């Protein structure tokens, strides 16, 4: 109601600033003012005032039309990324042409998340959902798709992107049965810890962003090129730095560091979880302690979102140092972006083996 009365005041004062009405963005309010002229207008000026109002209305309607139709050209692409690493990648490629909302943090187990109301609301307005795929978000992405009323982000639509699609996944099981624990039928989903995978995902994401926002296609491509260059150089640097890590035997908490170990040539000798997703039991940990005496490990690795109790228990008894890795962007103070993630991960691993 306030907007309506202020519009009326504006027109009767002869303030024709169109940007004011344009911001309000509601043509019906202005039309309302036109069909019901202000009763207090001076009589002799009424014709002029109506004509003036008509002009203003036309201008506002035009402005509104321009605003509505041209919106896609300057509005940022709304992205809902399920995890911090894909959010970071979207920012690398999209820059200020994308507006990214990330569904989880480095301290949350992505597999356990519920389809929270806040996520349904964000999915409603998303132009693009960047999911990890390989069933990592199987518990909540389908609900977001169904409950959001957003046709852009449905399975098979342009606005639904899965990072793992097109990548070669590790640990693809030849058969699956839940007795094996929380196995992923499509393979280990935590692909982002091999930075060479990031290059491939970035290329696919660039293409997808270009399809969604063709106006900014060139920008995405240029940003991708810059990202690829920096990342390739960084990978070279990291591989040299990480040379001493090759062959180092480690204990992991969950199978979520697989790609990192694979990339750096480290050796996983045991996992705290007896089966994927099954919380470590004291029985299993005791067995582990014994087997570590036969086949010793240099480090115990865990992510920020893993329960620290089992690794602490094992570290105390086996005297093997624990390294808490950031796992994803935001998982540590230094893992501010994808480059920081690997800088910090490798620095922590190197510091770990020097202990």
């Amino acid at each position: 109601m306030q907007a309506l009365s202020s519009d009326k005041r504006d027109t009767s004062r002869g303030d024709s600033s169109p940007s004011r009405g344009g911001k309000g963005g509601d043509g019906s309010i202005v039309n309302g003012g036109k069909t019901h002229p202000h009763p207090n207008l001076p009589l002799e000026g009424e014709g002029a005032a109506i004509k003036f109002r008509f002009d203003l209305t036309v201008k506002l309607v035009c402005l509104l039309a321009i605003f509505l139709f041209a919106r896609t050209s300057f509005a940022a692409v709304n992205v809902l990324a399920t995890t911090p690493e894909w959010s970071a990648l979207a920012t690398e490629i999209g820059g200020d042409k994308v507006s990214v909302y990330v569904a989880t943090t480095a301290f949350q187990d992505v597999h356990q998340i519920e389809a929270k109301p806040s996520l349904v609301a964000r999915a409603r307005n998303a132009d693009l959902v960047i999911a990890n795929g390989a069933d990592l978000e199987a518990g909540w992405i389908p609900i977001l798709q169904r409950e959001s009323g957003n046709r852009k982000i449905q399975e098979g639509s342009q606005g639904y992107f899965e990072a793992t699609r097109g990548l070669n996944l590790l640990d693809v099981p030849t058969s699956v049965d839940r007795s094996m624990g929380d196995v992923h039928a499509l393979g280990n989903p935590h692909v982002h810890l091999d930075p060479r995978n990031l290059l491939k995902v970035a290329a696919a994401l660039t293409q997808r962003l270009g399809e969604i926002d063709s106006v900014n296609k060139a920008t995405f491509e240029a940003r991708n090129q810059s990202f690829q260059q920096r990342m390739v150089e960084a990978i070279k640097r990291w591989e040299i730095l990480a040379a001493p890590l090759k062959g180092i035997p480690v204990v992991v908490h969950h199978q979520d560091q697989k790609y990192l170990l694979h990339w750096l040539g480290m050796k996983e000798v045991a996992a705290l979880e007896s089966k994927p997703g099954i919380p470590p039991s004291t029985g299993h940990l005791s067995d582990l302690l014994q087997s570590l005496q036969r086949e010793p490990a240099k480090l115990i690795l865990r992510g920020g979102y893993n329960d620290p109790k089992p690794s602490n228990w094992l570290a105390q008894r086996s005297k093997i140092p624990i390294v808490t890795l950031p796992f994803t962007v935001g998982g540590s103070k230094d893992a501010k972006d994808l480059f920081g993630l690997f800088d910090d991960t490798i620095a922590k691993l190197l510091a770990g083996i020097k202990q």
Partner: protein
Amino acid sequence: MVIKRTIIASVVAALFCVSARVWADDMQEIRNEIKEIRESYEARIKNLEDRLKAAEAKVTEPQPQGPAAKPASSVANFNPGIGLILSGFYKNLEKDPGTYSIAGFVPGGEEIGPGERGFSLSESELNVFANIDPYFYGQLTAAITGKNTVEVEEAFFKTLALPAGLSLKGGRFFSGIGYLNEVHAHAWDFVDQPLAYQAFLGGQFGQNGLQAKWLAPTPVFLEFGIEGGNGRNFPGLARNKNGFNGGAGFVHIGGDIGESTSWRTGLSYLYHRVKGREFEGESGTFGGITNSFDGKSKLMIADGVLKWAPNGNPKETYFKIQGEYFRRKESGELAFDINGDPTVNPFAGSASVFSSSQSGWYLQGVYKFLSQWRAGLRYDELDSGTPNIGLIGQSDAGTGITIGDDDFSGLKKYKPKRLSAMIDWNPTEFSRLRLQYSQDKARRDITDNQIFIQYIYSLGAHGAHKF
């Protein structure tokens, strides 16, 4: 002749030479071409060999492993998701469950009460679901009961491609009213539904109909929904009638507070026009009788849920608190002892005005204190109020019988209460074992101590993590 022959011979020789020359030139050209081709192939082969060597050297690059077993035909690829819930109980009920009633309330169907004593089977729930095409999603939930019957709990389609945040659901489905109404039995935090759900909705309200929802384009979750259907379930009743026979409307708002807390709250309204809703009653004068209600039933529900987990990570610990408040107003006519013999009961079949205003609420908290263990506490309370029944106070001159509130003994004012505590063990997200104790004071002046042991197993397709 000789000259002629010589000329011919030299012409032939010349021709031969020329053609041989030309032929030789062609040969050279062909040879060159072959050489070029060979060189280019050799270069290509070398290139390929180099690339192969490079690829072999790059052993650390993830190699495609590919699923070893692929479905034999594309038919299997399009199989819908199939999930099965297995659940059963052992119940130790102090009082005979056959006598169960919620005092002061019209009985809401068969699904109320604690169920059978001893070992029993809960509904085995079969879920089949898939996207039908780019425009629709479809789902069937069939409940195979312990009594060897099959019930269609839900069977609906839902649109996926409507614009502007709109979606339409049709078929049979649980209504979107309240918070718990849409939640399937296997996802409940306690063995049974809150008393309010049992008293006001006969457990859970679903009907055959349509639901339209609109999600507002706001960063805060804001959802509006309306439903219409045949009103086949309590408090409604299916009628031989075209069009809608019951409607519901709801609004839900939700969001996050920081990283650790999420909430949702809502307001719902359910309306029915009821015709001939019969229910068993106990009359002080005539014994067991059947009454029948015609009129309007209006139910309002206010619900709220808040979930907290450290860093928003529910894997090791979380706390959840939820509560709902119900208020129902019914008004119309009540027909007394409709099957009664007029020679015994002069009021048999006579209708009089009826109105009631009833309320109820529950509040429950569930705490996950270890990654596999949860404990919960729930309190239920209902207030039946005193219904206004026109027949009370009327007397028959011939027999001298006066109808009193004892003739509607089930509807006399009462405040049923219940306190429940549970603890459950969840080895994985697919299995749950639960122990629950309830002190149930739903029957008039009777306390029933109930102990439940329940198992819930989820097989097949990965279940949805609904908020």
